[in-house]
């Protein structure tokens, strides 16, 4: 993990039925401002393993007193969110990476339209203060289920008023995504953060209607999903590593002191690409092309796994 930083958890509060917000302050020194859309990677030490998850920063990017993140409890996952919800307490110390950004706004846009689904509101929380400072034209479409998610609705309403459009699936109608997209003026950029189904819907709609693909930006919450266990054999270091079902290959490598460059830990940035000599890969990333995937010569270990019981890596 690049240049780890120690932070204190100075406050924890519930911001929606399944979402907790954590306020992090520097353990020593000072935080620096970050760019809107940045994330940090939080390192979590459980009894058996280390989990590292990326979370978007949701505080004002110019505020260097604190970093804030929000974590949705996902019981079906590998345990990172459960750890944050159940094991982390006020006053604890955590280790994080400095902010990185893979989802920054395109400031050349004439207008910005945000689609947030559930906890996908978080990156936009850091966009908005900067958008307001710059006087940018933007609107936010926020979809959630109030029995689970829907954090910050009141605060957002105060901050941006009519530019906020909310869709609570419990009480109101669904967002007319096609309609919203059809009425965007020339020069609009779209940003989506939320579940894969939301991202797919918007991208598919874009293809169907001839929307310029390069003006559609998205970020999935890309915590790696669990899968079948397998064994990774490493040619260069001669190590044999067992990858259990709820650990990513990248995490297993790190646990065995094999450091791989990484940034997003979600299969989008391309940093962790590693060569494969043998074995069947189950590609789960968004980075490699279809051709590269079918060539079966490299893997993004942050999210992808093995279909076979063994994978031979050239690292």
């Amino acid at each position, binding site marked *: 993990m690049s240049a780890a930083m120690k932070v204190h958890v100075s406050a924890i509060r519930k911001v929606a039925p399944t979402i907790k917000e954590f306020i992090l302050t520097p353990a020593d020194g000072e935080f620096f401002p970050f760019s809107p859309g940045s994330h940090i990677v939080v390192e979590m030490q459980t009894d058996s393993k280390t989990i590292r998850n990326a979370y978007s920063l949701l505080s004002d990017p110019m505020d260097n007193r604190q970093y804030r993140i929000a974590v949705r409890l996902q019981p079906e996952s590998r345990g990172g969110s459960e750890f944050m919800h159940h094991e982390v307490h006020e006053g604890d110390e955590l280790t994080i990476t400095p902010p990185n950004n893979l989802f920054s706004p395109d400031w050349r846009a004439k207008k910005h339209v945000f689609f947030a689904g559930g906890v996908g509101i978080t990156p936009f929380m850091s966009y908005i203060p900067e958008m307001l400072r710059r006087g940018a034209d933007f609107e936010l479409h926020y979809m959630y289920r109030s029995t689970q998610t829907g954090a910050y609705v009141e605060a957002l309403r105060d901050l941006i008023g009519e530019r906020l459009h909310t869709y609570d699936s419990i009480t109101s109608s669904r967002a007319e995504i096609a309609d919203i997209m059809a009425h965007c*003026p*020339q*020069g*609009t950029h779209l940003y989506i953060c939320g579940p894969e189904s939301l991202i797919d819907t918007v991208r598919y709609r874009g293809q169907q*209607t*001839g*929307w*310029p693909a*390069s003006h559609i930006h998205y970020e999935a919450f890309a915590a790696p999903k669990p899968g079948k266990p397998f064994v990774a054999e490493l040619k260069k270091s001669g190590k044999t590593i067992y990858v259990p079902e709820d650990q990513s290959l990248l995490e297993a490598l790190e646990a065995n002191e094999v450091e791989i460059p990484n940034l997003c830990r979600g299969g989008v940035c391309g940093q962790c690409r590693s060569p494969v000599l043998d074995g069947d890969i189950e590609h789960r990333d968004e980075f490699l092309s279809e051709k590269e995937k079918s060539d079966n010569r490299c893997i993004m270990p942050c999210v992808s796994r093995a279909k076979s019981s063994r994978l031979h890596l050239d690292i």
Partner: protein
Amino acid sequence: MQPVPSIKSRPVYEDIGIDPAVQKHLFIAQTGSFDKLAKLYQACPSDKSCWIVGDDTQESLPDNSRFVSQDGIDTVFGEQFADLPISSHIYVAGQNESFLWDIHNLATRAGLASEQVKMFEPVTNQRRLFCTHCYTLTEGVTHSPYECPGCGRLLLVRDHFSRIHAAYVGVIINAEDPNDIPETEELS
């Protein structure tokens, strides 16, 4: 035929088709280059219009063509592009490569994505040359070295292309010895 670029920044012009999902198609040709896009224009079934930059010539142009003078393109197209629906493509054919990129730059300034501007391979290989010493832009350059009309330096015309200036870069070729004048070569 397009030269095989030895430098990455040199544009390569791909084959162009019509995407039926796109709502509005704008065809733009410099006088004398309509032929380049005629086939595609005829084949395009959806909402389309055709603009010619320059004068009405003997070319066989579609009935509803509109004409713009070269000096007017900034204002006319600037507004035109900003009013396009977001689902639009622009097709450009030109005598000179610089024309294509001037239109491209107007379109992206109006908010279009680069991929929405489809360019045909230019008719001639005349280049716009950017002097890296005095910043003079010269049109219609076909040979290297070329004497910069701005500063008089003898410039090596490089294949490095600046999309912002829609021009190739020229650097002094005989900096060490002004009497050393290399032979002139035709550009491809």
